[in-house]
């Protein structure tokens, strides 16, 4: 966090010194780090997103101030949501829906409730917020998103939320001054590895005035990476090594606790 603050100060100074761009407003952003390493002690992480709003001299200041919505997306995945039903007294998986290429992680961080920032049609068009993000389902040969109160869609959001993989936080983006902002991106322990994108949107008086992008990587490192990769790439060797380890442990125990 301390390092992040220092970096933040650096960016602010650099931005203040720079000449304003031609556009009326510009979003300058950075992340506290661009890689998250999963080590054996990994229990989740927090990234700090920060930056400033640059405005040229001709642009009059907005009376309502600025609002920012940041959408963080993890690598896409395809998954099945199954529903249990009671069949002859026991609960079994019956109906299912396939969600195609949906974000494995999704966080919508905003400075205020999205409904208070922009009109609903704009929010819908820009897919701001979990409720308005497209979650395509396999329907026959096609994919399409369904109505928002579809029970499978609701269950999908609920299950993702329970694993802290889908997050919506109003007020997560805070303005430290009228132009200086920061937000914390929470990464849960079960977050999948891959490239995560951060999509930033700047609003003033209910209209989109600027946007920006960031990206970071989550990867298994060292031992974790070695184990995970060997399990997939060299299944047979991995299995033989696991079995050998089991035999060695068992033999050691028998020798160490020998009683006769």
């Amino acid at each position, binding site marked *: 966090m301390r390092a992040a603050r220092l970096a933040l100060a650096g960016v602010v100074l650099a931005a203040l010194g720079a000449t304003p761009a031609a556009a009326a407003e510009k979003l300058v952003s950075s992340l506290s780090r661009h890689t998250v390493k999963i080590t054996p002690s990994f229990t989740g992480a927090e990234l700090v997103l920060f930056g400033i709003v640059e405005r040229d001299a001709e642009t009059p200041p907005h009376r309502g101030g600025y609002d920012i919505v940041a959408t963080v997306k993890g690598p896409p995945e395809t998954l099945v949501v199954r529903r249990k039903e009671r069949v002859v007294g026991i609960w079994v998986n019956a109906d299912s829906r396939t969600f195609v290429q949906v974000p494995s992680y999704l966080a919508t961080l905003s400075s205020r409730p999205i409904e208070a920032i922009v009109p609903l049609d704009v929010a819908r068009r820009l897919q701001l917020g979990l409720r308005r993000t497209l979650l395509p389902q396999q329907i026959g040969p096609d994919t399409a998103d369904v109505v928002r109160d579809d029970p499978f869609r609701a269950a999908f959001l609920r*299950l993702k939320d329970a694993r802290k993989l889908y997050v919506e936080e109003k007020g997560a983006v805070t303005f430290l001054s009228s132009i200086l902002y920061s937000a914390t991106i929470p990464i849960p322990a079960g977050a999948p590895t891959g490239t995560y994108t951060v999509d930033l949107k700047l609003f003033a008086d209910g209209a989109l005035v600027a946007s920006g992008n960031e990206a970071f990587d989550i990867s298994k490192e060292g031992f974790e990476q070695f184990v995970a990769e060997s399990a997939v790439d060299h299944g047979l060797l991995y299995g033989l090594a696991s079995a050998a380890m089991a035999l060695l442990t068992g*033999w050691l125990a*028998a020798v160490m606790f020998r009683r006769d």
Partner: protein
Amino acid sequence: MEIYLPIAGIPVNVFVVFAMGLAVGFISGMFGIGGGFLMTPLLIFLGIGPAVAVATVSTHIAASSFSGVVTYWRRRALDLQLAAMLLLGGFVGTAAGVWLFTWLRTLGQLDLTISLSYVILLGSVGGLMVTESVRAILRSRSGKPAEIRRGGSHTWFHGLPLKLRFKQSRIYVSTIPVWTIGFLMGFVGAIMGIGGGFLLVPMLIYFLRVPTNVVIGTSMMLTLVTMATATVLHSVTNHLVDVILALILMVGGVMGAQFGARAGQRMRGERLRLLLGVLVLAVGVRFFVDLVLPPEEIYSIRMLEGPQ
């Protein structure tokens, strides 16, 4: 102390997992069983996916049964020839089990199959053990000697062909029931993540009339090979064995087993069987209740393709 499991993809507390290994190891040493039927549900309860739990427990049981095999081998209390014949069936059974496991996983009915198998198998075996041991205890209370029925030992399968003499066990039986028992053990083990010791021991005693002193050693030998095979097969087909989780479990397990074995020796046979029966039955009932009661969340997610 939390540690991130590379395959299960979640952090767990090392001490909690170690304590689970220790506790299940104690029980397994006490009763001479692998303890997979306790370990697998415990891991699932901890938040580890059922598929990873089943695959990883097979590695854990391989370790605990090998430590048992070494001990029984020194006492010459295991029938290698019988174990080899059971294994022939066991290999086929394990391969069939891993195949069915993979298929059920794609169907989305793996969890149900695991639960149903637990209910049926543990419920019936536990019930039988409890009634049998209660009878034995009542019999010894009333003063009559607790006899093991060995008379009339010729059943229908003694007429089957391919007879073989097993010297260590001093039995002369057809290899067909031996292969069948081996197949069943391998099959059940691969699907349920259990070694099946608590099933194999009674089957060897009641069906094949194997003398009690070589039963446990032989059963452990079989468990060892089927579980080691299951470890390799699960690694090759499903990549689900979490070697870190297995290591923590087995270190706790082999230690607990030593203390359990000592505690078990001080108890009377029928008391021990009653206790084990109650335990087996309780786990079965627990699974039954979960299947019948309306679940809190009727929806579940499974990833088809995507990042690790």
